[in-house]
């Protein structure tokens, strides 16, 4: 800028040039402490999220370390013991994990086929007006607080299951009811993410397929869906991660008291029996009066750490798939 100015003005007297240039430079370089202060504040805002992550890792890690350093349990026992019974000093996390996996499995049985089905309908079949009505309705479903779904599971789904399969087969608190309702809760997430992925597949791929004589369904299943697969799978994984971390539905409908993984009275894999998930256990224990530095208090953080690692891995896989396998169409 300055050089340009110099050349254009070089015919005038040297003094005038210097004077004008000095004036420009002073304006340009005027210190603005306010601007720097604001920038500092904005950087702090951005950093706060990093501090949050560090805080989570530190809190979960340090409390979990305290838990393991009490000597009540070692890592091997933590991952292999068949029971979680703090009263008798047994801390095996696998019963809680298995209950979490059971509810997640039920949730995915509902959410994956129905979510993908709804997404395909919205992206491929629905006329524009139907789509414009249905999408906000699905968003309502996604915006309902989870405690309301918990109420729904306990007062609607459980009685329904008991009416279908018999009062003796289905206990009042059961994994299936919590899992199925969780599936309904996650359905809109999967539907919406998959629909985005399907809609991003360019039109000419579909038209090429029609041109080769494929029917609509053949085009969808053999051309569109494979092209959108990375987005769809990322949606599934986000759904699984939400199911693993979901709390209120399982706290209300899945029952209290961890199951026994193996041994004489093992009862972890009963769809219609009660089982306590990781999240359900944290809520139940912390809901009571909990004294700090007790082994119960520390054990919550060990469970929390396991849960955090689970969901973090799932989210990282989902992001990796989206970034690595995304087909970029022009």
């Amino acid at each position, binding site marked *: 800028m300055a050089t340009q100015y110099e050349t254009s003005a070089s015919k005038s007297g040297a003094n005038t040039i210097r004077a004008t240039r000095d004036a420009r430079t002073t304006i340009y370089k005027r210190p603005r402490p306010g601007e720097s202060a*604001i920038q500092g504040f904005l950087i702090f*805002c*951005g950093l706060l999220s990093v501090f949050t992550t560090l805080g*989570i890792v530190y809190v*979960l890690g340090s409390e979990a370390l305290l838990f393991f350093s009490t000597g009540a349990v070692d890592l091997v026992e933590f991952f292999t013991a068949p029971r979680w019974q703090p009263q008798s000093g047994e801390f095996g996390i696998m019963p809680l994990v298995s209950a979490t996996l059971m509810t997640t499995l039920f949730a995915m049985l509902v959410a994956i086929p129905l979510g993908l089905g709804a997404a395909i309908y919205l992206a491929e079949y629905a006329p524009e007006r139907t789509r414009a009505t249905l999408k906000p309705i699905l968003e309502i479903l996604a915006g*309902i607080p989870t*405690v*309301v779904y918990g109420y729904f599971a306990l007062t609607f789904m459980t009685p329904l299951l008991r009416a279908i399969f018999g009062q003796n087969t289905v206990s009042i608190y059961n994994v299936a009811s919590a899992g199925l309702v969780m599936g309904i809760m996650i359905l809109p997430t999967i539907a919406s993410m998959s629909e985005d992925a399907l809609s991003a597949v360019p039109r000419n791929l579909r038209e090429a397929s029609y041109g080769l004589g494929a029917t609509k369904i053949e085009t969808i299943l053999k051309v569109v869906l494979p092209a959108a697969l990375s987005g769809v799978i990322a949606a599934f994984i986000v759904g699984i991660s939400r199911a693993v971390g979901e709390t209120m539905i399982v706290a209300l409908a899945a029952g209290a008291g961890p199951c026994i993984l193996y041994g004489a009275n093992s009862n972890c894999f009963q769809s219609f029996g009660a089982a306590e998930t990781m999240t359900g256990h944290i809520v139940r224990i*912390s809901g009571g009066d909990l004294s700090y530095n007790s082994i119960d208090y520390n054990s919550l953080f060990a469970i929390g750490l396991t849960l955090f690692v689970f969901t973090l891995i*799932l989210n990282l896989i989902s992001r990796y798939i989206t970034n690595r396998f995304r087909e970029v169409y022009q």
Partner: protein
Amino acid sequence: MATVIDGEPEIKTFMPDEAAFKRGLAGRKTRGLVWQIFFIASIVIALLALAALFLNVVNSSFGLVASTFEIDPDEVVEGGDLQAASAEQLAAAIVRIRPNPSKVLVRDNLSSVPTNEFTTRPLSDVLSGHTIPPGIESKTINELTPEELGAVLAANLSTDTMLTYVSADIVGEDVLETYPLFDSLFNRGAIEAEVIEEFGGEAENVEVYFRSWLRPSFIVTKQSSDPIATGISTALLGTLWIVTITVLIAFPIGVGAAIYLEEYSVSKNPWAERFARVIETNIRNLAGVPSIIYGLLGLAIFVRALSAITSGAFLGLDGNGRTILSASLTMALLVLPVIIINAQEAIRAVPSSIREASYGLGATRWQTIWKQVIPAAMPGILTGTILGMSRAIGETAPLVVIGASTAIFTDPNGPFSSFTALPIQIYQWTARPQPEFRAVAAAAIIVLLVLLLLLNATAIFLRQYFRRQLQG
């Protein structure tokens, strides 16, 4: 595919003959139809689930109940509708049915003299500072006629106080059974017959009546352990306090972070850019962390480590760290990713021509951001903020973990109050086995959903308003 046999070119195709093709085509079309039916069925199931969810809530929050009464409400006020009774009617009923306890009510609520002088000193002393109906200033409390005592009560006690007293101590309603709305509407005869058979009907002082659990008094009454008399004002105020403070904390920080990531991260320094990408990845990961983990974070940091601040101890208040402030700080961390991601998108959508025009007029970077970029991005930023608020209103797990007390019977009055919140109350009531608590939970769910609806309607309104402002 062409192959050459004996020098003669022969076209070999895999096309089936016409009849087979038509048969095959019919099959392919049927397969398509079956799939299409499945796709439509999945969306129909989703819609049915939504309908079932709403109907299930409505079904439980209204309906017939069978109750016993110590004293029939008909005898208390004309028509038996306590909710609609005026202060005078309630006061008259209290004096008529409970002559002596009504004086105790005056003593406990209004008297300004020592207990032992209560019956001997004139009302002008006893009730000093309160309204005294004319002509009775020199009488003692025992010399009052029932009408005059009723007038004293009606003039000084609120309708709510008297209503609570009447329903708890006089009527003494005890719910034996509740019936859902649809049964109540279509099967009333059968229900009444069942009640007579099971509980004895009128003879045993059992009455069947239609009760709406969601009623005005439910919203303004404090929480109580009696399902008939309980209300949600305590929980509702708790929720409003939490959401307000959460937004006050999360909005500036969230928007600030978004501005930094969108406006300041592009720089000649590669480290600055890398740093911004780290923050951004981190925010995306935080958005996927289960809410209960934030609860554990809040429990360890805000409730425990910072309890000197969050309990208000530095202001001389006592109590523990399980306060509204702790809850709001936890919620703020929880909703930050939502606010940041939405604000980033809104800021990114502002065309760079606006920025360049502003720089061209000599504005500095911050002036450009403050005067041009933020106003243009405001609709999107507000939508994101309201999404975050909706999340803060509905989240239950973190609040339970940081230890919201549920047995709280006084309304919160500041950031350092211990609290309960609407979703926690819904959770607690739903978890109880008694059906009347389920009905109360359903009524509270309706309030929660209406609150969310209002919030989202505000979001749409604000978005339209700002858009018009920008265009005008």
